[in-house]
């Protein structure tokens, strides 16, 4: 009868069934609705696998998914490699042509800190609160990087929240944009930025690496890989490396990242009352970050004659390029001649850098 005892079906718990429902929901969103499918599909399937009984997939030292998680995420390998690919994809031209827009990426970190403060007031530890707050940056790899070091038990919930809010930016951000701006402000047409030379683009990743890492050394894994990937792209002498980083390598690490994150979401870890709080606080963080960017753009307009369309401030949350697309769409609704996409990409990229700096500061102050 040993075979009967080993039947998985006899060990299924209600918690596992609930997690299957969550896994299937994510798979549905990824496949049928195409919400962040590259991440939600492997995460959903990872959840399904991690909540099947007697598989041993997450058994420490033995399980396949445990090894993915341990050596990929916990050892800080996969999130920096994702940043390598992102860097190889990124054109910093829109940011370099309008340097003042970089401050909108800093302002959008306001939601991160406000939510950090709120979360610790609700009883989360400082490490947990930092992990929840960083969701406001709407940057999946940074959230995972920070969670793996400060609050691994919250990693799955925070990662899913960050990717979900990135995907839901077209639903979450427009009401905040309309609430905080007038029709006239949304219709502002910005002056075209100057042409950026190839030399600037080439020097930027090297100089940014020095500036940021000298200020916040803990941000080195993410910023270092981000700028290395960008140097691959801008140097134009290692096209094979640039192509590999942005395509093949990015796809490979995305698979391992998604499955590993899903695998952390066992019923014991995920079906807890504080997970609801995490999703609510994460939403607050994302909304406040959007609002902070908008408000700073409006404030900047008080002291400059070259007006900024305040909508581009909303792109200061990372969520590349979703937030920039939302800004463009809302701007075009107010003024059909408005083409805000490239202007919004500046704060969008600054938001990625700002979120990494914020995560680095959390790590240096709270990390073991």
């Amino acid at each position, binding site marked *: 009868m040993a075979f009967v005892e080993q039947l998985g079906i006899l060990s299924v718990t209600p918690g596992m069934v609930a997690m299957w429902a969550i896994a299937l929901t994510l798979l549905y969103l990824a496949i049928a609705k195409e919400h962040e499918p590259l991440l939600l599909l492997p995460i959903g399937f990872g959840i399904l696998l991690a909540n099947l009984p007697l598989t041993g997939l997450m058994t420490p030292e033995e399980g396949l998914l445990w090894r993915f998680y341990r050596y990929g995420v916990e050892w800080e390998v996969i999130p920096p490699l994702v940043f390598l690919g992102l860097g190889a994809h990124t054109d910093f031209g829109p*940011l*370099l042509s309008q*340097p*003042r827009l*970089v*401050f909108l*990426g*800093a302002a959008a*970190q*306001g939601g*991160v*800190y406000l939510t*950090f*403060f709120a979360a*610790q*007031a609700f009883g989360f530890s*400082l490490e947990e*609160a*930092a992990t929840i707050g960083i969701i406001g940056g709407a940057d999946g790899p940074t959230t995972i990087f920070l969670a793996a070091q400060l609050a691994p038990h919250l990693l799955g919930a925070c990662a899913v929240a960050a990717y979900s809010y990135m995907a839901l930016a077209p639903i979450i951000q427009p009401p905040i944009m309309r609430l905080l701006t007038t029709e006239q402000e949304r219709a502002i047409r910005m002056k075209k930025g*100057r042409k*950026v*030379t*190839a*030399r*600037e683009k*080439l*020097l*930027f990743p090297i*100089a*940014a690496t020095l*500036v*940021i890492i000298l*200020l*916040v050394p803990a941000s080195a894994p993410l910023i270092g890989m981000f700028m290395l990937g960008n140097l691959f792209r801008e140097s*134009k002498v290692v096209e094979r490396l640039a192509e590999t980083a942005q395509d093949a390598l990015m796809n490979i690490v995305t698979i391992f990242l998604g499955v590993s994150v899903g695998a952390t979401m066992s019923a014991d870890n995920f079906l807890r009352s504080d997970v609801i709080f995490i999703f609510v606080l994460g939403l607050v963080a994302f909304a406040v970050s959007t609002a902070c960017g908008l408000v700073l753009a409006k404030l900047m307009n008080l002291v400059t004659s070259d007006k900024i369309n305040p909508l581009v401030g909303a792109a200061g949350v990372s969520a590349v390029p979703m937030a920039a697309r939302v800004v463009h769409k809302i701007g075009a609704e107010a003024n059909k001649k408005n083409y805000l996409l490239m202007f919004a990409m500046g704060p969008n990229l*600054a938001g990625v*850098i*700002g979120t990494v*700096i*914020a995560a680095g*500061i*959390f790590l240096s*102050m*709270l990390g073991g």
Partner: protein
Amino acid sequence: MSPAVNVCVSGLVGVFAGIGLLYLMMKLLARLGEKAPRGAFSAD
């Protein structure tokens, strides 16, 4: 100052300092870019 306030204040100051330095660096790069001879680094 409570630890949470300390983290918040340090974090916001750090983020704005980092981004501020990045801004200055970009302004400097813009000046270097303008001074670059045509074809510098072969891609202009």
